[in-house]
């Protein structure tokens, strides 16, 4: 299913979807999320597997998010190049500029920026789309057709997010490094080869692969939360808008929290 955009711009936040209210609501939310995850896991590991739908979603989440991620990554690269230069020159460490840009982009900026950008676009998209389907009984129709909506809708989207995020992060890193070079070379010419050489000097796989792959966890978070919020939406247009908003907010929040945890874990595992 291609993304149908979320509904009204003036959405009153979650009358129908917790959790902004008291603790019990929050706990209930976590409880429902737990049940949801159990159903999804069961659906994920039993046939039939909705492979063509997964491919469709991969295109939707991945290929269609690419321009946005590339833009964000490029912006990050440019900004880093300009800011870092200023700081490094003050310490007489201008030669460290390529390294600073490459490391910052690849290990942290590209993953987190890609995560948040996709959180916004895809989180809102999936949340709204599934919520709209729920309120128009389309999910019931799927179920009435003897097709498991968890397999068809949830698993495919979550899996697509998990696969797409690392790929998008790679694209973001690429654009960040490239535009970082462009930005640096416009101030003080340096060849691309030399920039890359200096930038990756002392770099190891542990600086490149774990940060890129940790975005798969982001994808898991974004897919799960937005699918969950969508499939339990109630109440027409308000419900759809609320689902979209809370999907974005909660996905972004959990992505950032996960980043903190993951950075720590990566440092532990790959000293």
């Amino acid at each position, binding site marked *: 299913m291609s993304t149908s955009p979320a509904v009204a711009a003036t959405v009153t936040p979650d009358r129908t979807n917790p959790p902004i209210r008291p603790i019990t609501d929050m706990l209930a939310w976590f409880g429902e999320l737990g049940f949801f995850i159990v159903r999804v896991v069961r659906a994920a590991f039993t046939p039939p597997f909705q492979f063509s739908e997964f491919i469709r979603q991969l295109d939707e989440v991945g*290929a*269609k998010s690419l321009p946005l991620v590339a833009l964000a990554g490029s912006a990050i690269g440019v900004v880093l190049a300009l800011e870092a230069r200023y700081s490094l020159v003050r310490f007489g460490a201008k030669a460290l500029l390529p390294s600073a840009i490459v490391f910052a982009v690849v290990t942290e900026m590209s993953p987190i920026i890609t995560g948040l950008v996709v959180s916004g676009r895809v989180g809102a998209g999936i949340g709204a789309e599934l919520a709209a389907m729920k309120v128009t009984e389309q999910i019931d129709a799927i179920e009435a057709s003897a097709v498991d909506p968890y397999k068809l809708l949830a698993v495919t989207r979550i899996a697509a997010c998990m696969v797409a995020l690392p*790929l998008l992060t*790679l694209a973001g890193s690429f654009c960040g490094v490239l535009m970082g070079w462009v930005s640096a070379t416009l101030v003080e010419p340096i060849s691309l080869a030399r920039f890359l050489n200096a930038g990756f000097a002392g770099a190891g796989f542990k600086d*490149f692969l774990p940060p890129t792959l940790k975005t798969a966890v982001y994808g898991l978070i974004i897919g799960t939360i937005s699918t969950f919020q969508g499939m339990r939406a109630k109440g027409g247009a308000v419900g759809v808008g609320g689902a979209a908003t809370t999907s974005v907010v909660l996905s972004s929040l959990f992505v950032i929290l996960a980043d903190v945890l993951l950075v720590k874990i990566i440092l532990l595992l790959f000293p």
Partner: protein
Amino acid sequence: MSRTVRLGAFIVATLAVLAIGVFIIGGKKFLFNSTYSLKARFPDVAGLTAGAEVLVGGVHSGTVKSIELPHQASGQVTVNLELDKSTHEIIKQDSVASIQTEGLLGNQFVSVSFGTDGKPEVKDGDTLSTVPPLQMGALLDKANSLLGSAQNAMDNITSVTAHLNSVGSKIDSGSGTVGALINDKALYSNLNETASTARSTVSAAQAGLLDFQDNMQALKHNFLLKGYFKNRGYEDSSELGKDAVIGLPKATAVKEFTLPSRQIFDKQDSAKLKNEKAFNAVGEYLATNEFGVAIVEVSSGPSGDSDKELLLSQARAMVVHDYIVEHFGFDDSKLKTTALGKQINTTADDKSQSGWGQVRILIYPTGTPMPAASTSAPSSSAVPAASSREKMPQ
């Protein structure tokens, strides 16, 4: 663009980025070249980490694979290096591995020197010889103490400069003699006149002195006055210091002759020789043996006027020196004199009977450096005059 094409392009493009990243990083780690391993042992690796670069001749040619601590406290840290196969030809058994720092505070890396052609090659797994790394801490300590000394020096210079400054300012303001000298024109013209006067006086005096000396020489040979000179033992005061040296050489004497002055000299206050034969042994020894330098050392007894005794010692030394030189054949220039003058601390030496002092002739082996000549001329001669030595008629 159809959906499948777009998706396919997306996946291919991003995987290509992954591949590029892997190649760039892997290339730096020489993953894709064939490599071989070497070990290097250090007592301390000064913060080197695994993954650090290995430079051969300054070119990045490998990485530090791992670093292992020894199993015993007496052991060394083993650094396992992985090197590109291309270095096989230049790293030999006599190559040396060292740990260096990029710049002053940068990363540590391992540097391997070239071996020499012809030396045997290293095999996979060999151990290289090493030099321990420079500890930045030690270097800083040195620099610290250097700075401390420099600081002291600076402080001293500062105070000296301050002094000079004050003196200079005083001079400038005309205070003190020098100030007056520098600033007072009247004084200058005065001095000028005085100087020219002095010059003429001096030349007059010189002329007068020459005359005087001639007279004195004549007098010396006058029979009425002859006795005086004869009794004192020498004629010419101005010759007293001609062979003097400032002190004994540091080396050990190979031979020493000690003669009490009482046995040699005529009177307690004269330098006239009495018993010349006492010097035969000395003279023969000097004539027949190789020696570097010989010193005639004369000392006086504990009593008497210090200046007079010193003069006496000098005279006596000269007399002894001249006698030996005249009567025995050896290199004259190797025999020197030194006068000690009054010796207050009398040793319980029965040779210096009744406090006349003694004469020592010390002979030093070949190669002993000559002590410096004494510049303290006897007090009686102030103006250099050309006078010939005259022999005392015996």
